[in-house]
């Protein structure tokens, strides 16, 4: 037996109280782990999604970059349209590898669910070299391609027909795009001309996605495109920055809530341990009688606190990982312009940092009760008998 085992056995004396304190720390640590993971995972997912989009810049009609961000990531509908004549003009700008026109529309189904149609032309294939299509690319004006998720929800397979009462149009599924882990999985892709016709936007585009031959020519190309009338050019980085600044306030709010949770949990642990110290003050007095120094008593109390917080931290990380998919789903629903893919990632460094933070908090939380206990006089053993 040593002081460590004595501390551990002391914890068993107040199982419920210890368990509740541990649960408080676990919840706070799970929140910390989720936030740290989210901060890393969100940026990574955004980066991946932007890379997968294959777009270096997006040309839309003059407007707000937030709309452009929405367009790039969500297929959000923009009520302003670019003149379709800009597309060949943009394609003629030197330094452009691919320029593809896009028309995006949403349709609200009876159940109130929005489905997104993405009108694309053949050049779009250059931006999505990683797409694996089960079936084939559009076979005619009435063909449609579905993202994996869209096909699953609509219960359609290659060769099936799909009818949309909202636009009174029927299409034949020519291909299903295998899971990409991006928003593409939920889209319905139509040939651009068909989409323009069905949505009565002939000659209009939501935007033009541009891929450059050489990224270093970005400013030069951008300058030339901006000379065209009624165009607004936004870069991939600007879109990312815009999204990050939009989500920044959400992150700040979450961080504020987290700090409150951590402080409450920290105070809870101090309170629990302090209560135990008050209850055990005569025992500590007796220990002082039998040779314990103030340092011994301080160690016993701090080690107990440390154990509560370290165990809480480990459980918190396990808890955070167990419910990562639920948290992911919640964050996707909560945040505007959330990229697809997982936010909560299993980064060992983040796991370690979360447990280390809980342990450090435990060390600090143990100081006040530890000092209180260490000051117990041997006289406490005989006081109030």
């Amino acid at each position, binding site marked *: 037996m040593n002081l460590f085992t004595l501390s551990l056995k*002391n914890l068993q*004396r107040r199982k419920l109280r210890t368990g509740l304190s541990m649960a408080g720390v676990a919840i706070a640590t799970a929140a910390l782990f989720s936030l740290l993971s989210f901060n890393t995972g969100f940026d990574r997912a955004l980066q991946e999604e932007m890379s997968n989009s294959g777009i270096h810049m997006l040309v839309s009609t003059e407007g707000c970059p937030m709309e452009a961000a929405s367009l790039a990531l969500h297929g959000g509908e923009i009520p302003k349209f670019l003149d379709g004549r800009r597309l060949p003009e943009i394609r003629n700008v030197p330094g452009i590898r691919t320029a593809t026109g896009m028309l995006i529309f949403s349709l609200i189904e009876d159940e109130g669910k929005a489905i997104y149609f993405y009108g694309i032309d053949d050049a779009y294939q250059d931006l999505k070299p990683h797409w694996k299509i089960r079936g084939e690319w559009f076979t005619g004006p009435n063909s449609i391609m579905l993202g994996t998720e869209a096909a699953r929800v609509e219960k359609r397979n290659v060769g099936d027909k799909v009818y949309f009462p909202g636009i009174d149009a029927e299409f034949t599924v020519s291909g299903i795009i295998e899971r990409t882990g991006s928003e593409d999985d939920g889209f319905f892709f139509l040939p651009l001309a068909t989409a323009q016709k069905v949505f009565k936007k002939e000659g209009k585009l939501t935007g033009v996605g541009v891929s450059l031959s050489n990224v270093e020519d970005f400013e030069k190309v951008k300058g030339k495109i901006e000379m065209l009338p009624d165009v607004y050019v936004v870069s991939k980085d600007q879109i990312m920055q815009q999204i990050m600044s939009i989500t920044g306030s959400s992150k700040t709010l979450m961080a504020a809530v987290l700090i409150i949770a951590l402080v409450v949990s920290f105070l809870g642990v101090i309170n629990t341990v302090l209560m135990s110290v008050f209850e055990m003050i*005569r025992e500590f007095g007796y220990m*002082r009688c039998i040779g314990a120094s103030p340092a011994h008593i301080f160690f016993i109390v701090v080690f107990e606190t440390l154990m509560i917080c370290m165990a809480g931290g480990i459980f918190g990380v396990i808890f955070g990982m167990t419910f990562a998919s639920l948290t992911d789903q919640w964050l996707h629903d909560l945040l505007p312009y959330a990229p697809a893919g997982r936010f909560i990632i299993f980064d060992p460094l983040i796991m370690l940092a979360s447990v280390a933070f809980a342990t450090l908090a435990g060390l600090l939380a143990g100081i006040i009760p530890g000092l209180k206990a260490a000051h117990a*006089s*041997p*006289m406490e*053993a*005989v006081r109030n*008998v």
Partner: protein
Amino acid sequence: MSSLITLNNVFKNFQRGREQVHALNDVNLDIQSGEFVAVVGPSGSGKSTLLNIIGAMDLPNKGSVIIDNQDITQLKEKLLTQLRANTIGFIFQQFFLQPTLTARENILLPTLFTKNKVPESRVDELLQQVGLLERASHLPGELSGGEMQRVAIARALINKPKILLADEPTGNLDSKNAQAIYSLLDELHKEGLTIITVTHSNELAARAEKQISLLDGEVVNNQNNKMQASA
């Protein structure tokens, strides 16, 4: 026999609200090594205060207290702690056993705070002496009051102290268990241990070879039981 404990002109005052309490008033004592002393007197007479001072748990306001050739009023906290750990064993009315430790672990508790290496055989020896060898792995909750006090006595002896201080050691026990403790204390006394006990029990006081009677913080009687009996 040589003097193990000497108190010279010891005063101890407490402030209780506005009232100044004179717990000990010019107490002079000399306790020889190997003596069995009972401190008796009515409640509030200063018995426990005297025991606390002899146990280096508390210090007097005035006077000197020499324990094992060291004046505790001159010792720093660290040395007082060492004195309590190595020279004095304590038994209280409340047993102060750790409920999550077995009898054996409770007996070993004081060794956690000292550098003394105590072999397992020493614990077995003590368990044998207090008659609890078979109950070594039991938790305090599984022991009777008398058994718990016997574990507390074994614990007080683990570091081989020169002095055993007992504050009402049978105060929480029935007469049968109290008898077992009396016998144990007798046995320890015969082995040469210096025992000082505060008690309200006439039987325990009668077993001691010396009785110190206190009244209002003053020693009113300091007599040898055997001499008194023979007289």
